[in-house]
């Protein structure tokens, strides 16, 4: 098994004339919670989509466990998109069955326990749930996998502070040992306490990649303060 769970080598993605990712080189190790931090339109979602094989790179490559994104890498990557994406007509228990069918590392018992702890009825249809509850259900499904890499795109965007705490708590409690969690967000203050490393991304380029402890020590500021300084308009 490679030491790196995710590696970008000269990764470039262009949409027409616009460059969304500009020759990115990035190496992410195992067993860490990493914040992918940047303002809106900086390339966070594009990077995560490319790592999931949802976008093909224009140049360079992204490797998951030394492999180009495909069927094999999807077995070990658990992905949470930045929007509600599950079929709205499905019941929660139907979704749990579907995830069990397709992902060998999915733990239905964990999912049911988390659903129960939130007092959600597993026989409820997704479209009848509130937006916040839907987001919790999506996160529960994603975090009930024993994946090697979790790619969470804006998991706390658009939810109330109480739900944010629940989501962050679920991530810490449920990510498997030796797995890496990459969380994209611009709400640094809420997430800073759980991060081991941060990656700052701006205009499709990596501005900074460092451990949170080293950064705090060298700069003498919180990650949030450093972010505000780096991305000052």
């Amino acid at each position, binding site marked *: 098994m490679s030491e790196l769970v995710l590696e970008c080598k000269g990764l470039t993605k262009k949409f027409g004339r616009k460059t969304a990712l500009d020759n990115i080189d990035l190496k992410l190790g195992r067993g860490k919670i990493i914040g992918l931090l940047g303002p809106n339109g900086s390339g966070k979602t594009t990077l995560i989509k490319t790592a*999931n094989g949802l976008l093909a790179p224009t140049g360079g490559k992204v490797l998951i466990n030394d492999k180009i994104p495909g*069927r094999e890498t999807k077995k070990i990557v658990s*992905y949470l998109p930045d929007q509600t994406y*599950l*079929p709205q007509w499905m019941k929660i228990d139907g979704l749990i069955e579907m995830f069990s069918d397709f*992902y060998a590392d999915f733990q239905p018992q964990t999912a049911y326990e988390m659903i129960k702890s939130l007092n959600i009825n597993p026989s409820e249809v997704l479209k009848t749930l509130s937006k916040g509850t839907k987001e919790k259900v999506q996160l529960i499904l994603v975090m009930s996998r024993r994946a090697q890499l979790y790619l969470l795109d804006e998991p706390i965007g658009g939810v109330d502070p109480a739900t944010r705490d629940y989501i962050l708590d679920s991530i810490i409690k449920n990510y498997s040992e030796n797995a890496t969690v990459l969380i994209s967000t611009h709400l640094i203050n809420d997430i800073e306490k759980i991060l081991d490393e941060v990656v700052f991304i701006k205009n499709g380029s990596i501005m900074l990649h460092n451990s949170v402890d080293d950064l705090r020590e060298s700069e003498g500021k919180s990650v949030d303060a450093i972010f505000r300084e780096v991305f000052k308009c």
Partner: protein
Amino acid sequence: MLKKLIKHEIKATSRFMFVLFATLLAISVMMAAVMRFNTGSGDLYLSSVAGRLSIGHYNVFWEILSVFIILAYATVNIAAGCAMFFYAINRFRKNLLEKEGYLMHTLPVSAGENISAKTIVSVMWTIISIIAIIISVVIVCAISVGKPFFTNLHNFLLSNGVQTMLNSGKFWIIAFEFLICILAELMNGYLHIYASMAVGYSINKRRAAASIAVFILLSVISFAVSAPFVYLFPNMFSNDHIHFAIWCEIILDLLTGIGFYFITAYFLNKRLNLQ
């Protein structure tokens, strides 16, 4: 994984199809009742119904109801024939090209398996829809005509002409070839639609219109591929060459179908544009 995809695809589509078939069955029974009443062959049965509903043979309400049921029967039959076509378009769009695509394209399956599952299930439901329409016609005939329908059907099947045809090996070979041809046509048709949508939805704006334009373009290309066969073998549709004509059609369907499959897979892999 293909089996699992097919299982979930059937589960997702059966909700709609079962409602359609239940409606078809109900309207068939009503249609049969109307026909039995209007032909006068069911006087005894309908007079008791009419008695309870206080409706007589020439009641205006009953006549309006009859016309409504006949129209509804025709509409539901047409809907059953076309429904899967429109439903397959909608399902492909929602499930693979829009939000649900975030789930379907991150399952540990290939784009080819996703396309195959959609095609197999769409072809399956189309065939079941055709069978359902035939059953609906039989129900209408059986209830409206009653016992004479079965007697006539029995006599027809035992008639010399039909028996000679059924005992001939040539009939069964052509029937088999025809069945394969229908399957190839359906598969080709759905893959044609999927390829058009995969290309059309890879752009940012006017995606539906772009899909229609690509559909027309692919139709022209398919026609250009098949035209030389008709030109080279002008007598292929005569009785003597019927097997040749059917197999040519099957091979052309398979070849263009494979082309559509690879176009779809390429665009889902390399040009996916989920919105």
